[in-house]
């Protein structure tokens, strides 16, 4: 006995009922009962259908009254991030194509003018609907640092092991459900190992499937751990330079002693992570999220202006030392981060 064939639920959204009727007739025939076609003449109607049905693919027009296709895709992308999305439009321009792809559409197709064209679209949509994303980590990362990968894993609340190595050192960072739970590097374990790995000047890293470590040595928040790693690296470099030696790439000795006095350790007091557009992704103890977002956008604009005037290269971060606290602001095209950490041991400098 054959296993039942999966029936795909596909929604077409277009304000032209004649086009929808044609699609329904044609694709019902081509789909051979494997495709179940649903139609909506507006984005509102489509959203109602999405609430009622578990759909596999939405195919939308761009030019629609009230809520156009690009806005509709934006909503879909936020509310149904795993839903496959395609666009069919009679007025295909490069600008619309870019906008639709940026809003999560996997396909952007011009409306067909012949039955052959409809058949081509059917084949493309069938390819899209039967494509299954592979599990795991694939592809090449260029110009992406270890910190970026850790941030992505933590923000995505995934579980993985980061294997890091160079000629001198080999280590692992364990991330479980977006929390950094253990690190080991040579003979070191815990935060000291984490800082040592993050301070490596060069090397390679790979993401491996998660396996529980034999012990859990780290409990801090990942935002703090990354900031502390940056601070340790800066201090080590400065101390080495003051001593007239080549800066070592490892944790400063003071880190372990400071960890023995928990009350004096900095702690994260405020965190905001948002998309490059300012949409909040993670907000914690922000007194005014909107003001902080505006601040990050201002930082991004000023940094871009500085880069126009001087050959500074890409902007990495702004560090703000204030009384009793330290802020790190990162403002990239795809993500902006604001983290404020208390500095209970900070000496007054004014």
């Amino acid at each position, binding site marked *: 006995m054959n296993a039942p064939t999966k029936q795909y639920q596909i929604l077409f959204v277009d304000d032209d009922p004649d086009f929808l009727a044609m699609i329904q007739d044609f694709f019902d025939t081509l789909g051979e009962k494997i495709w179940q076609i649903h139609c909506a003449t507006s984005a509102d109607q489509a959203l109602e259908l999405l609430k009622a049905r578990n759909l596999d693919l939405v195919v939308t027009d761009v030019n629609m009254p009230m809520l156009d296709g690009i806005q509709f895709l934006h909503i879909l992308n936020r509310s149904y991030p795993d839903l496959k999305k395609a666009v069919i439009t009679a007025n295909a321009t490069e600008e619309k194509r870019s906008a639709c792809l940026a809003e999560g559409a996997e396909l952007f197709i011009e409306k067909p003018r012949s039955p052959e064209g409809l058949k081509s679209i059917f084949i493309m949509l069938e390819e899209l609907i039967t494509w299954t994303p592979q599990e795991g980590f694939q592809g090449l990362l260029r110009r992406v640092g270890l910190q970026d990968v850790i941030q992505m894993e933590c923000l995505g609340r995934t579980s993985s092991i980061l294997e890091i190595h160079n000629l001198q050192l080999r280590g692992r960072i364990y991330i479980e459900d977006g929390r950094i739970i253990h690190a080991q590097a040579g003979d070191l374990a815990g935060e000291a190992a984490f800082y040592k790995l993050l301070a490596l000047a060069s090397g390679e890293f790979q993401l491996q499937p998660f396996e529980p470590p034999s012990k859990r040595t780290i409990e801090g928040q990942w935002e703090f751990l990354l900031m502390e790693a940056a601070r340790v690296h800066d201090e080590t470099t400065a101390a080495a330079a003051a001593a007239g030696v080549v800066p070592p790439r490892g944790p400063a000795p003071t880190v372990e002693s400071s960890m023995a006095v928990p009350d004096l350790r900095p702690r994260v007091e405020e965190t905001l992570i948002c998309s490059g557009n300012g949409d909040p992704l993670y907000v914690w103890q922000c007194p005014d999220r909107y003001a902080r977002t505006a601040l990050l956008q201002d*930082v991004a604009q000023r940094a871009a202006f500085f880069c126009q005037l001087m050959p500074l290269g890409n902007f990495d971060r702004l560090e703000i030392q204030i009384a009793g606290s330290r802020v790190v602001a990162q403002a990239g095209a795809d993500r902006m981060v604001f983290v404020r950490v208390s500095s209970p041991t900070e000496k007054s400098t004014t």
Partner: protein
Amino acid sequence: MSSASQEWLAPGTTVPGLLACGLRLPDATCLSYSFDEMYPREHWEQILQQLAEAVALLAGQGLAPRRLTWTFEQGQIFLIPRADGALLAMVTQPNTEAAENVEQLAEEFFSLNPGN
């Protein structure tokens, strides 16, 4: 701009890795130096103006800074505001003597009397 400010800023700041530096006094007058033709004074003074605005913006959000460090791939901009509103700013190549002398320059800046 006082002669003391000029004297302090000019000779003491030509350390390896320092690309440009400048003082902006509370009355918005500026004294700036460029030590690399890729970092011209006119551009640096525009940046000084932007930095002063950023300090005001941060203060408005309860983040009155003691120090700002803008880190880029190929340079760092340091800004040290003084309580009277004067600002010291430097752009340095990363990991250079200049970048590591910021603390010392800041201390001297804080002890400087702009009225001299």
